[in-house]
């Protein structure tokens, strides 16, 4: 037979899509996620501030007083107010997610999610109350 079949070798030309930089703005869940991630910046800020406070304490009364004076400036007040809000958001979202990672068993039964969450909150309250007690006692 003279005519040859015209087979085409299979050569896929795949179409690759890319994620845009602002991939996270279209969906409420993604915005929540990015916010949660961004709050870690404030967690870091809070920790640093505490370290600087301890350092000032170590440097003597003058340094400590200067640090306290800085803490009373409007900038520091606003920054710390925002930090507290961000820390709350950060802690609450993570406490609520805890049961997803922490699967505990007691007496052959799985501890319900609400209890795991509750334990986290209880620990938080106990530690906070302990710290508050310590601070108020001095």
């Amino acid at each position, binding site marked *: 037979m003279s005519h040859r079949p015209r087979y085409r070798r299979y050569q896929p030309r*795949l*179409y690759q899509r890319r994620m845009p930089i602002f991939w996270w703005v279209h969906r409420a*869940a993604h915005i929540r996620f990015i916010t949660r991630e961004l709050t870690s910046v404030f967690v870091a800020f809070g920790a640093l501030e505490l370290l600087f406070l301890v350092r000032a304490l170590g440097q003597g009364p003058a340094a400590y007083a200067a640090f306290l004076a800085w803490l009373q400036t409007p900038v520091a007040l606003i920054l710390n107010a925002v930090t507290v809000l961000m820390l709350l958001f950060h802690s609450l979202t993570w406490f609520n997610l805890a049961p*997803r*990672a922490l699967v505990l068993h007691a007496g052959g039964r799985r501890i319900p999610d609400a209890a795991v969450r509750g334990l986290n909150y209880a620990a938080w309250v106990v530690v906070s109350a302990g710290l508050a007690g310590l601070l108020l006692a001095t």
Partner: protein
Amino acid sequence: MTEETITLEIFRYRPEREEAPAFQAYEVPCRKDWVILDALNYIKDELDGSLSFRWSCRMGVCGSCGMMVNGTPVLTCGAFLSSYRPGPIRVEPLANFPVVRDLVILMTDFMEKLNRVHPWLIRHEEQPVSAGEYLQTPAQLAEYKPYSMCINCLLCYAACPVYGLEPTFIGPAAIALAQRYNLDSRDEGFRQRTDVLSQDDGIWECTFVGECSTVCPKGVDPAGAIQRYKLTAAVAWWKHFLLPWQRGT
């Protein structure tokens, strides 16, 4: 009688014909009992035979009909047209995967990753047949059962921004399936799987966006599986670090 209709805007990509994909609109009857997959089949049968897409079971079992519908990954055999009224409905291939043609994606990457997590029962030593079956209590079964429901539909990969940005990430379903075997009382392969999953592209890539669990049609909760795995892996690492003479599984 005029029947109510709805418009589907479908992602078309025919590599032998066009360089870049484009959307094509089709008007289909909006029947009460029709799902998006029915509409696609209607288009293929009645309007345009050149449309390509995958499907098989039509009942949420085979996992082959996953697509992006208005930007969300869904099984098209389980998504009713009427819930998207008045439309238009945008249908695209699953995000984060290369497109072969129209609504068909290439899933080779997942198949390779799935294989890497050894998704089967691993035993140090098989017990002889004469010893009988490996028995399991209902509680032991309940431990891994949810993870065994995965149908490899890849909706979770399409929903995962980490996989989209970092395609080497081993991904939600593969880790959930690793957990399916890790949590099986008959399995002894935790260490082997953890060697794979504690690499850079394993569990630690996950930042817990959680969308994989939201879109999963089988309630597998891959996000939960990954966080659980992180915790177990971290505990195992510390144990090994502090008590190196105790080599558990």
